[in-house]
């Protein structure tokens, strides 16, 4: 009995490895989210898909180690920085123009190496019992005020936070970024592992306000509708209003260029875009697809004018974070 089970398991593993027309995807996005979408893709196109799920940065590091020997055809990443890093290392190939053109130029690689599939806005989440929206500053820079001492939370090891600091550096310069980080440090913020932990801590009343991505709130509210937390969007054009993207890139050396193109195109079809919007409260990036009702429109959020490809310049950011003692 046990032997039979083992045998079938081993056989199933090796047979999937041998099947020819399957597209191999490395996904930094969660299985729960991506799985059902991939099923639809296979139903629609007949192309089988195998997925390795993992954390986006770890998969990016793995792809860099694997180099041209990678079994992956497509990288579906949680943020633009990872795609930028792979692009810089020469690991990605250009996408077809028709696919790229579906998305606003702000949300794709200027050299066409990757395209955004959904948007995630930086917001200030706050505890509604302790803070009134009117008390919140118009700019993210306002949180260096001493009245926020001991009331803030952030997740400085988190990639989305670091991407925001990179944006801050690019928009306002290293000095301003240093000043902001030092100012926040002076307010003794609580440090969390990730965005979800910040939102949880807000719910517990451990902190009053925290710097996170917009959709964590809705995920947390799904399991606890009473959670006393809300999102606050800073003024349009402010570095704190940065909209980063999850996106897709095709790896150099894939033998399945056509199938990979179909996959990228599929993620930008209305069906997939609607799915992201409904399941994760992320911003759809293709025109004509509705944004979730709870959210202000992408135009109103007003992401600052910035080439997201440059968010891969994380080394400078990490050094800055370390020099200011944040990391």
């Amino acid at each position, binding site marked *: 009995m046990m032997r039979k089970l083992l045998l079938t398991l081993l056989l199933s*593993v090796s047979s999937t490895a041998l099947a020819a027309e399957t597209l191999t995807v490395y996904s930094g996005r969660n299985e729960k989210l991506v799985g059902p979408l991939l099923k639809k893709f296979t139903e629609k196109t007949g192309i089988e898909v*195998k997925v390795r799920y993992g954390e986006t940065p770890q998969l990016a590091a*793995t792809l860099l180690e694997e180099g041209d020997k990678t*079994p992956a055809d497509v990288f579906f990443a949680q943020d633009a920085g990872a795609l930028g890093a792979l692009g810089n290392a020469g690991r990605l190939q250009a996408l077809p123009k028709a696919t790229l053109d579906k998305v606003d130029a702000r949300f794709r690689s200027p050299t066409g190496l990757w395209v955004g599939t959904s948007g995630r806005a930086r917001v200030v989440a706050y505890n509604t019992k302790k803070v009134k929206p009117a008390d919140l500053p118009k700019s993210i820079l306002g949180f260096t005020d001493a009245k926020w001492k001991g009331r803030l939370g952030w997740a400085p090891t988190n990639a989305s936070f670091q991407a925001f600091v990179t944006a801050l550096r690019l928009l306002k310069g290293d000095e301003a970024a240093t000043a902001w980080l030092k100012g926040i440090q002076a307010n003794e913020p609580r440090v*969390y592992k990730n965005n979800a932990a910040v939102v949880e801590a807000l719910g517990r009343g451990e902190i009053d306000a925290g710097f996170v991505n917009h959709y964590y709130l809705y995920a*947390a509210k799904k*399991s606890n509708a009473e959670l006393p937390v809300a999102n606050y969007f800073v003024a349009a054009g402010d570095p704190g209003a940065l909209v980063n993207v999850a996106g897709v890139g095709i790896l150099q050396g894939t033998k399945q260029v056509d199938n990979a193109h179909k996959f990228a195109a599929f993620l930008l079809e209305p069906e997939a875009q609607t799915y992201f919007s409904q399941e994760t409260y992320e911003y759809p990036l293709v025109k004509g697809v509705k944004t979730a009702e709870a959210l202000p429109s992408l135009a109103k959020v007003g992401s600052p004018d910035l080439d997201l490809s440059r968010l891969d310049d994380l080394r400078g950011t990490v050094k800055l974070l370390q020099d200011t003692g944040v990391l």
Partner: protein
Amino acid sequence: MTRRPPGWLLVSGLVVAALAVLPAVYLGVRAAEADADTWALLWRDKTWGLLWRTLGLAVAVTACAALVALPLAWLTTQTDLPGRRGWTVLLCVPLAVPTFVSGYVLLATFGNGGVLEEPLSRWGLPVPSVYGFPGALLALTVSTYPYLFLALRAGLLSQDPAWLEGARSLGMSPARAFWKVTAPLLRPAFVSGALLVGLYVLSDFGAVALLQYDAFSRAIYVQYEGAYDRTYAALLGLALVVVTAAVLVLEVRLRGRAGYHRSAKGAARVSAPVSLGRWRLPALLLCGAVVAVGVVLPVGVLVYWGVRGLVGESASMMAPALGSVLASVLGAVASVLGALPLAFLAVRYPGRLTLAMERVSYVGYALPPIVLALSLVFLGVRALPFLYGTLAMLVLAYVVRFLPQAVGMVRSALLQLNPHLAEAAASLGQSPPAVFRRVTAPLLRPGLLAGAALVFLTAMKELPATLLLAPIGFETLATRVWGATAEGRFAEAALPALVLMAISALGVGLLVSQEGDAPRG
């Protein structure tokens, strides 16, 4: 001391040692790309601060784990404590609790808005802060004391009762006899268990990150997390290898050179259990308290999450459970097999080379698992493309990571085994394999089983290497738990986490029941 080991033993030992040293080689290759700026990053005051904080935590956790593990190991092996086997199993389970669960339990209990806040504030008492050092110390002690517990148990079980009985018959009090006879004989088991605890702390990322304690592994992780900067991460990793090497050299000093095996007559015999008398209740309370913190609390939290999530659909646990068990059992067996030549060479043929081979097996263990996983990606795509992406690669990763757990256990068991027994069998015309099968292996059984149990338990919850190296589509309970918690869906994480803990407890139970039948040599 100048006996030469047989060639086949030396070669198999060298192969295992070469595998074990792989992560360090990988780090060396990546670190070689570093420019002056990157080196400058390493030589900053911050690095030294990290180093001290990490070492301080490692020492403190080891000390606390010893305080917990020693009495528990003694109670469950040497006394008439009621339900010894049951306690043994329960006391091993904390090893199988994924770190994010134990960390969350602490936060949910002691954090702001946690369970303790209201009752404590009613009495006007402050809630003890769980962040930083105290929290990390508590979380890591609870999750690592089983290493020492299992090591000390194996040590106690294979100890010759003749020593203790001799001391008692000469008029020593039980307590004095314990400290004068039993405890010194436990030294190898204690030191190898303590090493596992200490080095685990060096590598741990989960607890220190969640509880906001800035340690070395966290600094390394940050690099992979956001910076895609493999060079600086490699430098930090190499620094950790150097620290590990220092610890390993120190351990050799602590080991001493005494002989630990039984007196000439090798009859297997079980010692009479010590009667606890009126100490029975306090002993039960101690076991109960540790189980309450290490098992009941996390299970409670998981059940609470699970109940909240019961409205959602529940996916089948069969495939991931099978995947976990398959990979972990293979990993445990392979690790013990790999540990045997290293331990034999180090104990039976002591010398610089054999000692070095045994020592390097610890390198992979003290590194953050992501470093180890990437080093195997590095090796796999270049040297073993036919294995890359198969289950064999994952098992290999488990061996490289968990080898020292098996080496430590096998080694301390071997130290307590009188070499004359095997020599006598050989002189009676038995071939070396027959000697091993008929004499050595049965006598080593407690050590082999303890080693396998440790690897099995830790492999069950292993995550980074499993995600990156398992065949695509291969699921384990740990990856299920991760899949759910990564997006903050704790309710869905509860079921796989509970199944994971249940299977782990079952595995330990199976091993403990085997242990009882073993002849004690």
